[in-house]
């Protein structure tokens, strides 16, 4: 994990001092509301329906046990005892008081954390793969690159007043778990024929009102040119992105209007001037960034003995066997595995955790995973380096804390935005829909039989729940003041990113579980041996699903 040095700490202290001063001037009436707004947003502070919300940055999802404990303390002291992990690997507090926010920032700075650029029209938290560094299918560890991009983008003086927010994601493996194609910039680490490392650069992806899958403008950008190339993209966007209409201000609109080819050519022209300039990376920069992401001190594990322990427990306890099947992932080091902690038990808003749970995660990370945890964009957590032999004990501890719901990657592992319960932009509630679906499909055998399936819910077209790229996507819509839900299928967030297709007219909330059941029935009837939901959809198309969902009751 990246460790702060004196310069990083100095920067954070200066940031806290700056924001304290800005808040004081605002509260005294010396800083007008409209000017304070971008400043507080760039510090992650929203004013939402019920109270302010503070979004704290977790760079590319990596967090240490001591940081988790500090978050627990903040939830307890300044909030109502809970917090919320987001789809961008960050964490949010929903009830902080504005005058206390500078104190919260000081508490965060003491553990090298902050809320810098977690909102506002700037470059946001860099996101990545929660299995970075341990995934068997990894080409190259993305974390050092995330860190280099994080530093470059932090307080970048030219890009703090962009036309709109800007999100960058980095993937280092063959199967993209960071959803890079739905980001403003997606960076894919690749190796060329000669075995040299480079970046395939996607631009213009994004969801919201106008969902777009990103397009490639750079097939192979050499690592040392990464930052100057990014700077060229950002400069073209900063200069030519629309500013007259916030719904048309994202880079995706500029890329669409110009076409990816023209956009890419403009970037290349700008880059000619920046290339080899002062932001060019050196071998020393690479080495510095890489030294923080070395493997932890893995022990030589007696793999056969560990497997025997695990098998014995699985034979004795069905629940453990199920958890093992869904919540434990392969690791490139023999005898180790990654464990996903589910934050999706039925009846809890996806991603919510209490202060006590945060403390418990910190203890488990210390005990079983080298003191580190990771946040996933599915709003779960990962302990990345667990000895296989520890799985039974870890499972019991997770069960006691409510993190062992064995449904990772299934229909029940829903991504869901805060929706109408919390968000002033909502057309409809979303959390109760997630809960109704979880209750309807609570039979684990059925969920497992359905296999890998993503279901995403957003309470309005801003698409915070990424409904466009869920295999099943649910969108809250408002019809003459009443809440309805539009359902789409066929979306995908990974390497074969695709937007879902709307099935047809929308439904009342109570109808939603039944509609989902019909969609699932079509899949079960039509699937071929071993086919996942999305594979069946790709083969049979949307029509059979439409026919079933809108069939007149016989």
């Amino acid at each position, binding site marked *: 994990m990246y460790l702060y040095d004196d310069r990083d700490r*100095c920067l954070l202290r200066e940031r806290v001092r*700056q924001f304290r001063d800005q808040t004081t001037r605002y509260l005294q009436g010396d800083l007008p509301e409209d000017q304070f707004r971008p400043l507080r947003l760039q510090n992650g502070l929203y004013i939402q329906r019920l109270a302010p919300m503070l979004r704290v940055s977790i760079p590319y999802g990596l967090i240490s046990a001591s940081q988790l404990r500090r978050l627990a303390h903040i939830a307890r002291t300044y909030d109502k005892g809970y917090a919320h992990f987001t789809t961008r690997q960050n964490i949010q507090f929903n009830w902080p008081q504005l005058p206390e926010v500078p104190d919260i920032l000081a508490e965060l700075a003491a553990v090298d954390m902050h809320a810098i650029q977690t909102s506002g029209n700037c470059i946001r938290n860099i996101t990545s793969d929660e299995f970075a560094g341990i995934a068997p299918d990894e080409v190259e560890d993305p974390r050092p690159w995330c860190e280099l991009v994080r530093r470059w983008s932090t307080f970048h*003086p*030219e890009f703090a*007043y962009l036309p709109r927010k800007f999100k960058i994601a980095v993937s280092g493996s063959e199967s993209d778990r960071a959803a890079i194609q739905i980001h403003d910039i997606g960076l894919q680490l690749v190796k060329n024929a000669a075995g040299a490392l480079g970046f395939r650069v996607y631009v213009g992806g994004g969801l919201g009102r106008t969902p777009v899958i990103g397009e490639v403008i750079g097939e192979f950008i050499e690592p040392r040119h990464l930052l100057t190339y990014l700077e060229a993209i950002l400069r073209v966007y*900063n200069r030519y992105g629309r500013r007259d209409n916030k719904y048309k201000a994202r880079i995706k609109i500029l890329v669409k209007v110009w076409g990816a080819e023209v956009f890419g050519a403009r970037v290349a022209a700008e880059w000619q001037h920046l290339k080899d300039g*002062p932001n060019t990376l050196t071998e020393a920069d690479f080495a510095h960034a890489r030294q923080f992401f070395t493997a932890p001190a893995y022990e030589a594990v007696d793999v056969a003995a560990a497997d025997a322990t695990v098998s014995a427990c699985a034979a004795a306890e069905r629940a453990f066997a199920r958890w093992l099947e869904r919540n434990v992932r392969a690791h490139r080091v023999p005898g180790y595995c990654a464990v996903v902690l589910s934050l999706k038990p039925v009846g809890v808003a996806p991603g919510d955790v209490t202060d006590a749970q945060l403390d418990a995660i910190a203890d488990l990370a210390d005990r079983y995973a080298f003191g580190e945890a990771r946040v996933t964009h599915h709003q779960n957590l990962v302990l990345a380096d667990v000895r296989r032999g520890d799985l039974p004990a870890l499972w019991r501890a997770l069960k006691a804390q409510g993190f062992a719901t064995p449904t990772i990657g299934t229909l029940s592992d829903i991504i869901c935005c805060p929706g109408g319960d919390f968000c002033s932009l909502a057309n409809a509630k979303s959390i109760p829909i997630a809960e109704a679906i979880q209750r309807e499909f609570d039979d684990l055998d059925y969920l497992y039989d359905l296999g890998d399936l993503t279901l995403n819910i957003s309470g309005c077209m801003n698409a915070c729940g990424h409904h466009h790229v869920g295999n099943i996507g649910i969108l809250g819509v408002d019809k003459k003041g009443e809440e309805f839900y539009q359902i789409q299928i066929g979306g995908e967030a990974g390497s074969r990113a695709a937007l879902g297709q709307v099935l047809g007219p929308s439904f009342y909330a109570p109808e939603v579980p039944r509609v989902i059941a019909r969609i699932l029935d079509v899949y079960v009837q039509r699937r071929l041996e071993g086919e996942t939901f999305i594979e069946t959809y790709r083969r049979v198309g949307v029509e059979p699903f439409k026919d079933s969902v809108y069939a007149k009751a016989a």
Partner: protein
Amino acid sequence: MPKLLKAGSFTIDAWRRLDADAARIADGDALLFPLPVWLARRDALLARDSSHTGIWLNGDEEPEQIAADIHRFGCIAVNFPTFMDGRGFSCGRLLRERYGFRGELRAVGDIFVDQLHFLRRCGFDAFELPDDTSLDTARNCLDAFSVHYQAACNPA
């Protein structure tokens, strides 16, 4: 009257923006020519001394258009139509880093003190601020950070 912050103090402004429809151009006055005026009368204006010849660029105007004449200007003012419009930050860096402008680079229009630090890092060295701006606040804001993670324009 806005105040001009330069070299850490409020100073008397020597420059005046020429009205687009001004009939007469006084020789000795330090004037900022709106880009269209400069482009239209360039041949005649080239005779002026750079010490009192400047340009006033609007947010949507391209610094590329004055690149060839850049050393003929003593001052370039970049206008920020609203404080949320960040194009001027790119404009500043281009003028300094790409076109090598060495004169006074002034941020004018709808800017506020909390932007000063970034403006300076984008090459600006003079700032037109509202009349009621406190000098202490402005100085604090200019020096908000002593550490930077990326290369940009750093004040001499």
